[in-house]
Structure formats: C-alpha cells, structure tokens
C-alpha cells in the first residue's frame, strides 16, 4: 500500500488554547479511517489542517506526489450558504475548480464529468434544480458528487451522517464502500455505527490521537462511548481497550 499522506508531530490551537498536540497520522491508499472523539476534541480541525484551510502551529503534513491537489472534501452542512441561488449542476461542477482553472470557463470535459457523476449518484434528473429543493440525503450525495468530480486520491468527509435519515445513511455507506477500492476514505463522525462494517482503522482524537484496528470497536464499546459522557469528555473515547492508551 502506498503512503499518500503523512501527518507528523502536528500541533494546532485557537488563540492560545491547544486543540491538537503532537498528532501523527498516516493515510495509505485504500485506507478507510474513522475519526471519532468528543466535541472540541480536534476532529474537524485535523481535517482542515490536512486540507490546508488552516495552518499548523508546528509539525508537518507531507503528501506523496500529486496528492495535495487530489483531496476530496465533503464539509458539514453548516459550512456553506444553503440559501445561495445555485443549481445542483453548478454546485457539483465547482469540484472541477483548481488554482489553475478558476479564471477560465468550464471545459467540455468538466461538463461531461459533472454529468457523469450526477448520474452515478442518482441526481442527474435534478441537475437544474436549486439546491434548496433537495432533501438532506440528496444534498449529502450532491456534496459527495462535488468532491468526486476532481477524482480524488483521498476523500475526507466531515460528519456525513449528521443531517440524513437512516435509509440515506445506509445508502451512503454502501456508496463509500464502492469507492474505497479507488481512494482512501477518512470519515469524521459522532456516529460510527453505520460505518462499523467498512472501516480499517479508528482514530480517537481528544487533543492527542489514538489508533485502533478493525474489530476493536464493537457495539458494546460504542454503547460505552455514547453512554458515558463524563469519560468521553475526559479522555476522548472510553472503551474496552482504554488501558492501551496509557
């Protein structure tokens, strides 16, 4: 497996308060990583650091050749202007934009790619509708479609199941499973259950980062994670292998 991203000794904070400390993370091709942890633990911050949206205090993020421009990003619903007058097609085609093309017209190839990806996610018929008219599940698929247009090597999703119903959650995880043979997938989530069959590794983040392999997080563990808020806040993830962290 090829190493695509290497996060080394990364630290970051807001004002003077550290959010992440000395975090190391390697992402290999075809990895499927879940990032879980309490609110304010640094999950989204880590993703934003990898994407270059914010700059770290110290440490480094190294990309293998060509990967830094091939990062797919599916943000939380709250990060964009939902009342913006934009059609689904125009939103998805934004995925083709790059530092080399933002001052040029869309190429025929971009239009074909956008149409193809809309067909793949089952939203082609709705391409001329305003994004306001889409359901939560459809909007989530549209955001994924936007991130896929650029043919990413790594797909990073921030709370992809937060605003969608159970059926949409299941079809989302099935869709991601299908993509995993072609790209690494990193999911930040409070809700790891829908991904329980798919992930390879879990990273628990609460300022520090801890890793676990597949099978170490079962339903019993999850019950504990979401049933023990005190430990969740204090440690990041209370679970049966808590001792391994010490």
């Amino acid at each position, binding site marked *: 497996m090829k190493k695509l991203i290497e996060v080394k000794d990364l630290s970051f904070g807001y004002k003077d308060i550290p959010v992440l400390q000395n975090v190391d993370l390697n992402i290999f091709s075809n990895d499927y990583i879940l990032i879980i942890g309490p609110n304010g633990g640094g999950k989204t911050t880590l993703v934003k650091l990898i994407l270059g*949206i914010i700059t770290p205090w110290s440490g480094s993020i190294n990309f293998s050749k060509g990967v830094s421009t091939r990062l797919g*990003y599916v943000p939380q619903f709250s*990060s*964009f202007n939902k009342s*913006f007058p*934009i059609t689904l097609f125009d939103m998805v085609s934004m995925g083709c934009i*790059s530092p080399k093309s*933002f001052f*040029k017209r869309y190429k025929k190839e971009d239009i074909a790619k956008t149409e193809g990806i809309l067909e793949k996610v089952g939203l082609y018929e709705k391409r001329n509708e*305003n994004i306001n008219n889409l359901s939560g599940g459809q909007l989530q698929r549209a955001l994924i479609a936007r991130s896929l247009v650029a043919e990413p090597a790594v797909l990073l999703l921030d709370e992809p199941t937060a605003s969608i119903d159970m059926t949409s959650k299941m079809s989302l995880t099935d869709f991601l499973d299908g993509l995993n043979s072609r790209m690494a997938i990193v999911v930040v989530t409070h809700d790891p259950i829908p991904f329980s069959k798919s992930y390879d590794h879990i990273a628990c983040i609460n300022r520090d980062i801890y890793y676990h392999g597949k099978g170490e997080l079962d339903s019993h563990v999850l019950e504990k994670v979401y049933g023990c808020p005190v430990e969740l806040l204090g440690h990041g993830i209370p679970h049966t292998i808590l001792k391994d962290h010490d």
Partner: protein
Amino acid sequence: MTEFFSILSYEFMQNAVLAGLLASMVCGVIGPFVVARQMVFISGGLSHAAFGGLGIAYFLGINPLYGATAFVLLSAGGLGLLKEKTGKSDLFIGILWAIGMAIGIIFIHLTPGYTPDLMTFLFGNILTVPRSDLFIMSVLVLVVLLTVSIFYRGFVSIAFDEEYAMARRLPVRWLDIALLLLIGLSIITLIQVVGIILVIALLTIPVAIAEEFSNAFSNVMIISAALGVFICWTGLFFSYLIAFPSGASIIMVGGMLLGVVKIAKKTAGRY
C-alpha cells in the same frame, strides 16, 4: 408619457438615462455577491468612506469622482488586508464609516467660496450627472464587468462555500480583496445615481427580487441588472413627473416593487 419622451432630447436627461443604465449593470453584477457573501455592511462602510475622498477632492479643486475612487479603493484594499490578518472586519468598517464622513464634512467646510450641497452627495442627483462623469462611470463599469467575467468561477466559489474554495487551494484571500475593490468601484458608479446613503438599497433590492425568480446565480445577475434598469428609469420618470428627489424616488420604486413581488409570491403560493 409623451412629455417624458420629449424631454429625452435634453442632454441632462440623456445623461440621467445613461447613468441609470450604467448603475444597473453594476447592481446586477456586483449586487448578488454583496448579498450572498453578506457584505452589505462593508458596502455601507465603503460608500460612506467615499465621502472623505469627495471632500478632499473638492478642497483640492479636482473632480470629486477621482477623490472618491481613490478613497474607496484604498479603504477596500485596507479592509481586505485587515480582515485577512485579524479575521474580523466589523470594527474597522464602523470606524471607516464614521471617519470617512467626518473627513468629508471637514474638507467641504474648509473649501473656500461656494460650498456644494451635502444633500447632493448623500442622496444623489441623477439629473446633474455631467457627460465627463459618464465617461468615468463607463470605464469603472467596464473594469467591473471584465474582472467579474474573468474571475467569475472563483468569485462564485468563495461566495457559496469559502471553506471548500480553500480546500481546493484557490487564492481565497486575494479573490476576497478583489471582490472588495470591485464593490468599491461599483459604489462610485452608484453614488452618482442614488447618493452615498442609498447605495446599499440599489445593491440589494434588485437581487432580493431576482432571487424570487431564479435558481441560478448567473440568472440572478441578469435579472438584477434588468430590474435595476427598470427601477432607475421608473424612479427617474416619477421624480420628473412629481418633482421629487431623484435618488429617493428610485429607491422607493425599488422598495415598492420588492413589496409587490413578495406579496404576489406569497399569495400565489396559497392557491
């Protein structure tokens, strides 16, 4: 109506009609970005800062438009850089707003001889736009249209989802500053028509109406521009007909149109 067309033979009326057309173009092109990126307060700050430039230009005896343009561009660039450094802009906008006005009032007060009527700057007078200013306005509009057409995709990206644009490694900060400068140039064009205080209305009302009729950003631009023409010319007509101040008449036409459209849409939705 016939009388209105007959007065089109007067140069001042031709100038007013052309000024309305030019103003509408920037309303259509820049207004949707102002609304989408929630830059209404910044636009208000820049238009009031322009008054400082107008005052200094009057004092120095040069064309006030040059002074206003220089002042607004400096303010827009400065605001953009401060926003980039501090992540905040509200405080600076408020300061710029008040200091710009204060500088303008002081320099107009210091100008010897004839003191221009402050009301003309604050509320505009489309009927007094000279041919020479139309030329400057045309150049400003051309710069705005060309820049937006070149960087359209970048501007739309940051207006819709700034974070995603950053993730795509777009030069978001520079695009933001460029947009601020374009808003500044648009304000200079609009001040001639509706004055410093009413500029914000002309940047927002046509967009608010256009958004009721279109799903796509580019269409909102076109509809806003068309509505701008309708609002400016209708306001001009009423202003002439009933001898009302032109700037206020234009804005009132826009406001009433917005009210009618909103009520009509709501009523239509019920049936």
